[in-house]
């Protein structure tokens, strides 16, 4: 694996291997000394063209726990806002000595361009690009699901995951549909028709407009997507209250789930819009656990990309 740009880059075995590596990383994180020497001497650049405190600090923690040096580059207030191109920024970072670039960009495909345009020759990790992909989010979601639903081993064959919300604008939804399907899970998308992309029928999942019908169908996990409030003013739905009534996960809907079923949310949550406080704070909610798992998964990704040759030479 040279880059991680999309969950479609992963077949079942490589996805399971990444999750297994993340499990091994997670074991080390319960020790008093969490730091591993694996990436000592390497420099990882977090190149963030979009605000994202959570994802950036998660990657930063992952890199540091592998003993890599980390440079955080935020596009705001930098030369980028003065019109420097993505190409020049990338080449500058390469010249500084980056061994890997973790990139978040508002334009779909920007990480793909970084990896393939011939500008730089370092591994590229996609930390979220436009409405395209957010592969480490999908991996941490799968990791969380696997721990609860498959004893932290193998794949998610036969499990049913319902993904609810703004699918149209969501890179989390795209990454998750691809990865969960690859791992053998059954996926159902639920959204108002305005928040589903034209062309969704080609995806490896079922699609419905009816949340209650989807939740009544042997659900193992419900994944709620963040809905941006400005979507309402753009006419995607009439009001917050109507959205919450039809597509929000509230206490009553959670109560109808099977006992083992989980509630996931990538954060940050809009309490009262797509998820009620009761649902968010219920014991089935894995929201906080997902954050912790994010560090383990990102450690596994960086380790696999940068120390790939060492992988297999004993456990981390």
């Amino acid at each position, binding site marked *: 694996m040279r880059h991680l740009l999309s969950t479609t880059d992963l077949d079942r075995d490589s996805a399971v291997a990444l999750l297994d590596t993340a499990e091994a990383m997670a074991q080390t994180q319960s020790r008093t000394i969490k730091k591993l020497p694996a990436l000592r001497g390497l420099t990882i650049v977090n190149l963030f063209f979009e605000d994202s405190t959570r994802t950036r600090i998660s990657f930063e923690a992952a890199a540091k726990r592998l003993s890599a040096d980390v440079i955080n580059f935020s596009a705001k207030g930098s030369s980028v806002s003065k019109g420097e191109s993505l190409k020049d920024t990338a080449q500058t970072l390469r010249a500084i000595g980056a061994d890997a670039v973790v990139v978040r960009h508002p334009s*779909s*495909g920007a990480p793909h361009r970084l990896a393939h345009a011939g500008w730089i020759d370092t591994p590229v990790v996609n930390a979220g690009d436009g409405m395209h992909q957010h592969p480490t989010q999908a991996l941490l979601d799968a990791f969380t699901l696997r721990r609860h639903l498959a004893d932290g081993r193998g794949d998610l064959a036969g499990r049913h995951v319902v993904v609810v919300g703004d699918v149209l604008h969501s890179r989390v939804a795209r990454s998750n549909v691809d990865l969960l399907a690859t791992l053998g899970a059954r996926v159902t998308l639920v959204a108002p028709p305005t928040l589903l992309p034209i062309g969704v029928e080609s995806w490896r999942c079922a699609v419905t407009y009816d949340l209650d019908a989807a939740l009544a169908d042997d659900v193992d996990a419900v994944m709620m997507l963040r809905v941006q409030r400005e979507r309402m003013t753009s006419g995607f739905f009439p009001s917050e209250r109507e959205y919450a009534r039809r597509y929000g996960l509230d206490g009553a809907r959670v109560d109808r789930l099977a006992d083992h079923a989980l509630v996931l949310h990538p954060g940050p949550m809009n309490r009262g819009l797509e998820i009620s406080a009761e649902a968010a704070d219920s014991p089935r909610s894995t929201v906080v656990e997902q954050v912790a798992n994010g560090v383990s998964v990102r450690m596994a990704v960086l380790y696999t990309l940068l120390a790939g040759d060492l992988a297999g030479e004993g456990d981390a």
Partner: protein
Amino acid sequence: MPGYLVRSVAPLGAERTDLLLRDGVVVALGRDAASQAGSDDTRIDADGLVALPGLVDLHTHLREPGREDTETVDSGTRAAAAGGFTAVHAMANTAPVADTAGVVEQVWRLGRDAGWADVRPVGAVTIGLAGERLAELGAMATSAAAVRVFSDDGKCVWDPVLMRRALEYTKAFDGVVAQHAQEPRLTVDAQMHEGVVSAEIGLTGWPAVAEEAIIARDVLLAEHVGGRLHVQHLSTAGSVEIIRWAKARGIAVTAEATPHHLLLTDELARTYDPVYKVNPPLRTAEDVAAVRAGLADGTIDVVATDHAPHAVQDKDCEWSAAAFGMTGLETCLAVVQQVMVEENAFTWADVARVLSHTPARIGRVADHGRPIAVGEPANLTLVDPAARRTIDPRVQQTASRNSPFAGRELPGEVRWTFLRGRATIADTVAVPAPSRTGAHA
């Protein structure tokens, strides 16, 4: 002045004959050509070559005035000559916009001075392409540039009242309104065709309906006021259907398709390489098939390049930051040969129809798109259909490098182009006009 004796050439791919070109016209055909040729006439062994009337492009962007870093009238028309064209229409979205008699005359003169091809400036429909008030269409029509094609290309004349007025007003001087059909509200931030691929790769969609809704409205407006409408770069199967319906109704509408919409599909966007970013966007394989069928049955009247040169930095970036458009003058004939002639949908006479006769008629371009006959202007191109080339933008005549066909093998090669009897391209080599060589000396 000595002329050219073209030996054993196949006009429109028909039986081989000889042509004698002298003093800007075809002076003899067949046996007469050889017998009338003098010793100082240049002899061209054209065995295996097809002669076509000089090609006429209804849709190019020559970028001058304003973006001479990407193309000039000189470099753009040199590219045109290399592609077999003897007349090109230059779109109005320059800086300043070609919305006055002054600007269109400037562009026209630059073309005349360069001497590679006749430049027919297109006048803006509205002042500054702003879509608010009609530009002085009459002044541009009566200027030295004799503008007959009016377009806000790059932007849609969206206001239905303004479009109605433009279709009406241009009747006074036999003008045609060439519409860039794009409903603006349905295409806010649009990046590529809206469909299966856009859903997967997360780029904002440009739905087919945004093109079709405007075409449907415009054909009805043209019917109502009796004006002449030309639909630019038609790209969807639905658009073909609407044009077919309108023509059956007797509405005065013509339509063009670009080479890229005849060959390339939205699957290429998966590379995220902005060389494939164009407006209207590359569509699906089904749309490509429908556009080809529409061209084959005459629903689509002409092929036009929408040649759109761009600076390197405007394509060497992430997709959404990149400019729309691709070059096309030097690959147009090759694409038409591949997708139409080699698929047995077209004869060379059909090629002459869609790339010369009909575009000249739509644009009211005198002396172009004429038959290959004695007494006609010697605007001709000689193509070797057996040649195969791998497209390399670095060796093209255009000043820009954004060809979507780079690295592709395409059939056919333009060997000679004659503008009023002067070889602008001589055995694939571009030959500047004598006045230009003097000027540069």
